[in-house]
């Protein structure tokens, strides 16, 4: 990582020199301003964070809609209001959390020194997101006999999601811990009466919540890793070119 850093700073210097020396000639083919923005570490981090945030907000809105949908009549009074039917702070919270998770995953990977190699492709990430939405869909739409069944099914699905798309121990651990933390936070919120569920089944909360959280953490981690991989790949490619 430090090597990459030095390489990047060096190349930044070099680029400046080259452009000066080019004296009005065409700029470097692959090192336009756009690229330099991408390469800049903090900017890259910010971009990644923003992307993850927007993805999180979007997913939160859509999934909330899925959950709300059962009670929606044929002609909703106002679609917009049903989209934003949850409290205003929920989507930003989800977005922030997803941004943090998405940035945390590649960082932990690099800290542990075991880069995630398993299925690093956008198609796989898309598949993961689709499965995540599907899990939400199932939890919202499918009628289960009882809550235990629902929770068990969702847990199996979540673990299956992890097995299919992640398979890293760090990912599992992080997912479980974040899911537990999030459930705890939700629990606290419910206890304090900020909001409550229509039909709590286990200690005032829904028992499938940790599973959903876990699947969400895995999904966001996947996206974050893929985004980080892009940066990593880009830096590699650039050094290759130089």
């Amino acid at each position, binding site marked *: 990582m430090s090597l990459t850093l030095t390489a990047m700073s060096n190349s930044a210097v070099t680029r400046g020199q080259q452009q000066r020396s080019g004296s009005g000639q065409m700029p470097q083919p692959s090192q336009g301003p756009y690229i330099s923005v991408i390469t800049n570490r903090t900017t890259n981090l910010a971009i990644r964070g923003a992307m993850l945030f927007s993805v999180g907000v979007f997913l939160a809105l859509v999934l909330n809609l899925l959950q709300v949908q059962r009670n929606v009549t044929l002609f909703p009074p106002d679609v917009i209001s049903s989209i934003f039917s949850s409290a205003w702070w929920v989507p930003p919270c989800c977005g922030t959390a997803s941004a943090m998770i998405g940035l945390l995953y590649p960082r932990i990977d690099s800290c542990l020194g075991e880069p995630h190699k398993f299925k690093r492709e956008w198609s796989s990430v898309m598949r993961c997101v689709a499965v995540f939405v599907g899990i939400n869909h199932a939890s919202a739409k499918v009628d*289960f006999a009882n809550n235990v069944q629902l929770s068990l099914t969702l847990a199996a699905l979540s673990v299956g999601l992890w097995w299919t798309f992640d398979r890293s121990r760090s990912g599992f651990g992080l997912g479980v811990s974040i899911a537990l933390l999030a459930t705890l936070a939700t629990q606290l919120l419910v206890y304090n009466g900020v909001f409550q569920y229509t039909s709590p089944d286990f200690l005032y909360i829904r028992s499938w919540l940790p599973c959903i959280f876990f699947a969400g953490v895995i999904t966001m981690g996947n996206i974050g890793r893929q985004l980080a991989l892009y940066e990593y790949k880009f830096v590699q490619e650039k050094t290759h070119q130089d």
Partner: protein
Amino acid sequence: MTLRERLREKISAAFYRHGLLCASYPVPIILFTSASILTCCYPLLRLPLPGTGPVEFTTGVRDYSVPSHEPQGDLGERPDWYRGPPVAYIQQVLVKASVSPWDSSLVPVDVFRSPLGRAFSLLEEIRNHVHSDGSGVRSLETLCLQVTDLFPGLRRMQSVLPEHGCLLVSPGNYWQNQRELFDLDPDLLKTIQKHEPKGLHTSATLRDLLFGVPGKYTGVSHYNRKRVVTYTITVVLSSYDARFLGSLRGRLKQLHPSANCSLRDDHMVHVHFKEEIGIAELIPLVTTYIILFAYIYFSTRKIDMVKSKWGLALAAVVTVLSSLLMSVGLCTLFGLTPTLNGGEIFPYLVVVIGLENVLVLTKSVVSTPVDLEVKLRIAQGLSNESWSIMKNMATELCIILIGYFTLVPAIQEFCLFAVVGLVSDFFLQMFFFTTVLSIDIRRMELADLNRRLPAEAGLPPPKPGPLRIREVPPPPRPSPHTITLQTPAFRNLRLPKRLRVVYFLARTRLAQRIIMVGTVIWIGILVYTDPAGIRTYLAAQVSEQSPLGDPGGGGLAPHLGVAPVFRGGDPTSALSIHPPPDPTPVPENQSQGHHGAAQAGPLPQASPPAVPQITWGAEDEEGWRRLSFRHWPSLFSYYNITLAKRYISILPVIPVTVHLSPQEAIETRHPQDTRHPPPSIPKVSADLQTDLTLYKVAALGLAAGVLLVLLLFCLYRVLCPRNYGQNGVAHGRRRRGDLPCDDYGYSPPVSEISPLLLRGHSMDIECLASDGMLLASCCLAGQIRVWDTQTGDCLTVIPNEGPMCGWDGGYGAAESGLLGPETLGPACEEEGGGGYPLRRRTAPTWPTLFNDQPDLTPLIDTNFASQPPSHLCTPPRHGFDFGGLVERAYMEHEAPSPSAYPSPSSASSSPASAAGTQAAADGESSVWALELRGNLIAAGRSSGKLELWDAVEGSLRCVNEDGGSGITALAFLNNRIVAARLNGSLDFFTVEINKPLGLLQYRGAPGRGSVPPSPCYSSEDVISCQLTRSVQCAHQKPITVLRAAAGRVVTGSQDHTVRVYRLEDSCCLFTLQGHSGGITAIYIDQTMVLASGGQDGAICLWDVLTGSRVSHVYGHRGDVTSLVCTISCVISSGLDDLICIWDRSTGIKLYSIQQEVGCGASLGVISESLLVTGGQGCVSFWDLNFGDLLQTVYLGQSSDGQGVRQLLVLDNAAIICDFGSELSLVYVPSVLEKLD
């Protein structure tokens, strides 16, 4: 062999055979597959089409009874939704009213004012209708659907729609069902229009709801030519009472008989509505579909290196989709009717089934060797991936099976679909996709063949040789993994993505098309919503323009003033005085309310053409069909009643015909109606007026058209600059900047630069030497190989103990010399281990030399004997500029440096002979320096021996053992050899050739250069090598660099100095001091420009004639590892992986290029503007003028860890670089013309 392996083998074999089959008979297999797809999809025909359109079912009125909830067995074609009572019964009273006869004194408003006014009396009649018989008295109040409250959020409808009580809808609702309000309303049309939504609307409008017929059929407008007003009074009943309805029907018919009405009234239609998808449900659905498409996009994007990427992507998608269809079809066939919402689970099914296998198959097939037959490639690719495919499929089946045991019905059903889908997908992959792939590959090969033929013609004819592996340009290399990563070199040349987008836009003229489509849609919306009433205006104008076009008489708008012309023949006036038919006797006690008896009656006689004729046709029978299918759902939704998955029953309409007399129409007039007769056109100039209007309209249209064209043109100019990147000045310049490879006269096509691997050495290559035609290389094992640089063939192999193996016994003397074991070498090695490493690369490699001797048996190549000995002398030579050769050969030829020399002074005087005699019979000395001139190889060994070998025959020609210290660097110029030794001494040798014929042959064009060309040594010559002069203590420390050019020999040493000697008399001309570190790189060329770089990172430019320092710059942190000069600039590379380009005259750094960490320090200049550098497993080409990376050529697959350490640029624009134990010959063919 375990069971697993056996299974694996069997699967692999089966797939192989299957691949052969598929590739052999593509067409029959595709036909078969299509047939099976169609067969499996056939049951789908029986499924109802997806959609939200309502379904109808017609029953008779007479024997109607409310269907029971329980399904009563099989009741014919009765649909399964026809159970239980409907939500409501709809009884429509269809009113057609007209003022007749039409009077010229009437204004257009009269067409609809009084007919609409009649609705109130009809309403009254319907509301107050009671039917009493034995079972009691029933009125509408008891039967109708009582609504309680409007849906919240429909406040604007509140004043119009009934809020409580009976749901009875009629145009009277506009005026709250109060006649007084209606009479007081000055502008009826405005009132009606007030409630219309603006903009585009597809669902039912309020006007449709209230009138009960589509807006254009109502006839409520100023331009109603038929003068018949149609509307309905819609009664919504909650329960069905045949007798009440019958009496109502009879009553209304009695009051307003419809003479020529033959509507059937014996059928009632039940309409079943599907569930509608609201936007709230749509958003998640759309999201899943977006994710699905992203998934498909990202998946198919990876398909690469096929003929038609899109075709294959389409095939992949078709495979998945048809497998899904097949699964649904099969499930339906076996009686499993899908209950899940297909649209919802479809994306998940696709994601579960996935496109992965298809991609894996493509990759695998594409990465098979291209020179195989297509059949074999397919088979091989299939069998390569068979195991993973089977494993994946088994895993997925297992997961789905687990899902099946969740015992949740929905999930079970999903799993069932997924299983069948997976299996059918596998089937389709194996048969359909594989076959399509084989066809595609075949096409690609054909196209490839056509494209590559001319390119191949330019290359020298390939010679089949066991040692030569030519890397075929189209990248399929035999590595089974990741085709995406295999060709990064080619990816580098691809256009930037944004440029591709721009090109795509430009190519397809997308912008213009989008603009045009947008404009058309915009115009369409304009026309459709008709904000300014243009349509009606135009229609009116047109109708006025063609009075003769319509013989019906309705076209004669009386206010136009043309009417009087026809009035004479118009019988209306005559008929208007006809008395209404005898008033209908009011039935007794059937109507409680008072209502005006029909004052206007129908005209039973033959209606004159000018009389508005009321006709009843079949289309009136079910007039509600012309309404939007969302008519009823929206009506009910206003009261928060959903019709989804329920049905309503529509009763036969009750026709009511109302004729009003002109007097009545005039009576009901509002005072304002006459005040402004709508089209206030002066009658006198009617014709002129209409003409003018037409002209105006035409002119307006023309102007609008011109404006539109101008606007489009402007947009086009703004969005799509005219020159699509061709020879534009500023624009083209910028674009060329983005596209470096197209710029500098040469655009190295992807396929042309292909490394030619020269394999044969068993260990890392230590020395390289070339004279343009031949290439000599020496590896750590001591084996010297000679290659042909044109073809890459290995010509000669000189094993390390070559003479000992003895293929030619005639060199006895040489043998003894060669066998002289070296004592100094090992000593040096040991010292080297302790000393500090001068070069990174040498330190680790040396110990292996002696610790583990390689197996030398493969090095003994007996094949050279078959090579014709005269082969090398015969090739035509075109006058090599040897000075240039030397500089090129030298500039990258890094002399294998000694690791350290602890006591140079003491060792400098060690007698060479002593070393030779002390030699034991074991061990050998390694080659530290190698030079090649003509066909003589000069090899300097670590023992201090200088050997001259015949490059063609591989025979030892001469040995000189005068020096005792290892030769670290050699220079071979003309007939002189300069050897730099480890102890700092410099030996000058002269090669003398004693030709038996007494002739000295010269090769090459004599007038070419200032340097005499190198003689050609033939095998008959007796070559001797004499030590002419030995400069002891040339340097205080080991000599690290030795360069010779232009009659000068330049040495650089660890002792911070550079010395310049004259070649002829070995006289030291200058000692150049200026570096503060050991000299690591020296460059000298014909123009006497001398550059040196040292360990201090400094680069000095010297004037060789005067010995003065021209410039002195610090460029690197760490050693300068390599130096090259061109006419205008100096290029240096350092240990800090930086390549700096300096202006040669001013010494100003132009720019620098950061390389990869650990990159080779090798540099080479091919032409004035083309720089080549070695990297980790690749060589990169740079444009020197701008510092642009032109291309990176990867030398092999296993590129990691092996850097290019040495790089030689040959005259024919080829680059030789060492690459581990291999040599790589890279042709840069497109640069050939740049060289003169």
